[in-house]
């Protein structure tokens, strides 16, 4: 148990610290790298909870795909972050005010939890038994109890895909594309031409290109 506690506090500290650095780092590439650190330590927290499948998903999807994509975007786009930060001082007072209000509210929530306990009357997370693994538990409900959410989420992804295509795909005329069927269908008649050259005359461009 002590080992678990040590691991929890270690991972939690790293997660919060890395998350803070994500928003405070000057260099956006560093931000993304700290984000990856935060994802990794959050995955560790999931393992501690016994949710090893979610932990692996977090690493595969968020670290492997999302964060790397962020990195690509940050490196490829020429974003002037100094210009983006302009007006920071101007909006600081109202931002600080909202942050202050939120902090006070969060403290109030924390105090109410500490004194009165959470309001939940039926906190029954999916129970684990040794017979059924964590992954199997998810598998059992994902396509049965949660099939509606699962399908609807699929449609959200479809919309995202259609949107990306609508907004970025351009059919430019005059672009030379590889046409494999045309390449394969080429034979000596279409691919070769015999040109009679008069003796003594040079090969001129017109004669070759028609």
């Amino acid at each position: 148990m002590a080992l678990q506690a040590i691991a929890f506090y270690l991972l939690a500290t790293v997660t919060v610290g890395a998350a803070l650095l994500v928003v405070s780092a000057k260099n956006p590439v560093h931000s993304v790298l700290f984000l990856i650190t935060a994802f990794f330590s959050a995955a560790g927290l999931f393992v501690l909870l016994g949710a090893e499948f979610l932990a692996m998903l977090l690493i595969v999807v968020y670290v492997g795909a999302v964060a790397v994509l962020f990195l690509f975007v940050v490196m490829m786009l020429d974003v002037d972050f100094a210009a983006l930060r302009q007006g920071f001082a101007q909006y600081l007072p109202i931002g600080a005010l909202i942050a202050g209000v939120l902090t006070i509210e969060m403290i109030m929530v924390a105090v109410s939890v500490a004194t009165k306990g959470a309001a939940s009357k039926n906190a029954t997370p999916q129970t684990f038994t040794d017979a059924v693994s964590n992954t199997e538990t998810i598998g059992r409900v994902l396509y049965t109890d949660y099939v509606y959410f699962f399908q609807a989420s699929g449609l959200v992804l479809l919309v995202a895909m259609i949107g990306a295509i609508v907004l970025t795909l351009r059919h430019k005329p005059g672009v030379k594309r590889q046409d494999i069927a045309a390449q394969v269908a080429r034979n000596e008649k279409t691919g070769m031409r015999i040109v009679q050259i008069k003796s003594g005359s040079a090969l001129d461009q017109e004669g070759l290109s028609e």
Partner: protein
Amino acid sequence: MNLSSALSLALPEVILAISALILVVWGAFQGRSNPIFSGAAVVVLLAAAAVAAMGPHGVAFNGAYVADGVAAFAKVAIYIASALAIPLGDKWLGARGDAKFEFPVLIVLTALGMGVMASAGDLISLYVGVELHSLALYVLAAFRRDDAKGSEAGLKYFVLGALSSGLLLYGASLIYGFAGSTKFTDIAAVVSNGAETGVLFGLVFLICGLAFKVSAAPFHMWTPDVYEGAPTPVVGFFAAAPKLAAMVLLARVLQEAFGGAEAQWRQILVIVALLSIFVGAFAGLAQKNLKRLWAYSSIANIGYAVLGLAAGGEAGMQSMLMFLILYMVDVTGFFACLSALNRGGKPMETIEDMAGLVKERPGLALAITAFSLSALGLPPLSGFWAKFYVFKAAIGTGDVVMQTAAVLGLVGSVVAAFYYLRLIKTMWFDGSVGATDKPEPGARLIAFAMALFAFPVVLIALAWIDPIAKTAAAAFGG
């Protein structure tokens, strides 16, 4: 409940989802938009509306999907408004060389998302529905990607929408954490005697997120920019169906899940409603661009809908539904007029462009006049009845705060009257600034149909819609 009976309850959404998939493949093979394709999308939406109207009522998917009178009522309106957006948008985009087959597909998918929202009985379906419809709306806002303002509108909407989704999710996670369930019925059991601090905190965030989606102040700042930049028929769509869907969703959260905390959320809603009414009324005074003007008008009008919802109970719910249905007619009609009007191939979007319109296009000028007077709330046009329901519900609560809010709402409505009347004055009494192009017949037809509904059809229709909304509202909530 087995899958087939669950699917039969969710039949409107199933129809839309399968049709959207078929339309995508069909469109991809065809490569471009054509009237048959768009017509098919319209037929699908109308079929879904018919199924929603006649389908069975019940709860499916472990409470994630609720088919009841309110959902059916909202869905019929949403699907019909979506169906109207397709021919309007296709023609408008086609005239600018931007017609694409994805447009009807995206409208169908938005309608699907709105259907999920209207039927949500769980925080997860709430979020999925909101995301499904807003993602499609972001793309629709930026549909003319070579138009700088359109792209700006899409980007702004997307970034601020993502922020609001973050607020929504944060609130949802807090509610889940403190209530121990994402199901509205379970949450209702937890908050039956008023919400504890933690749940309340989550609820505030949830209201903020949804207030953003309906462009209620103080989460309205994206609205004028997005409305100005987005394609005109798309704006007409934005201002109508998604508002109804998000308001029904908000009503579901507040009355089904947080019915026990009514005294707590009512004060939030009253503040949001009054802020929206006054921001919409006063900021609208300074607007020159008609799309921005109607953006502020929509902010003010959503304030009245929120006020109706704040009244709570059956009367409040009925007033919110009636208000939004009648408002949807106005706003769809107005933007249909705006889509129909061009001068020299350029859209007429400022108040000056409308000068002397009555000499050029008397029919459309009359229609715009009708919509403006209706949005202003002049009897006997539809907008008057809309506000009548809201004020009646607010006064009927017997709560002093609600009654004061109703009086203040009336004051806001008087302030807003200025900009509607200025538009009418410009159209009727100023000198013409040149001939307009021939209006697009489809848009003109829709505009005239809506104008006829605003007056006099509304008087007959009210006798028919009123009891439907009443029974739907009576069966709603815990």
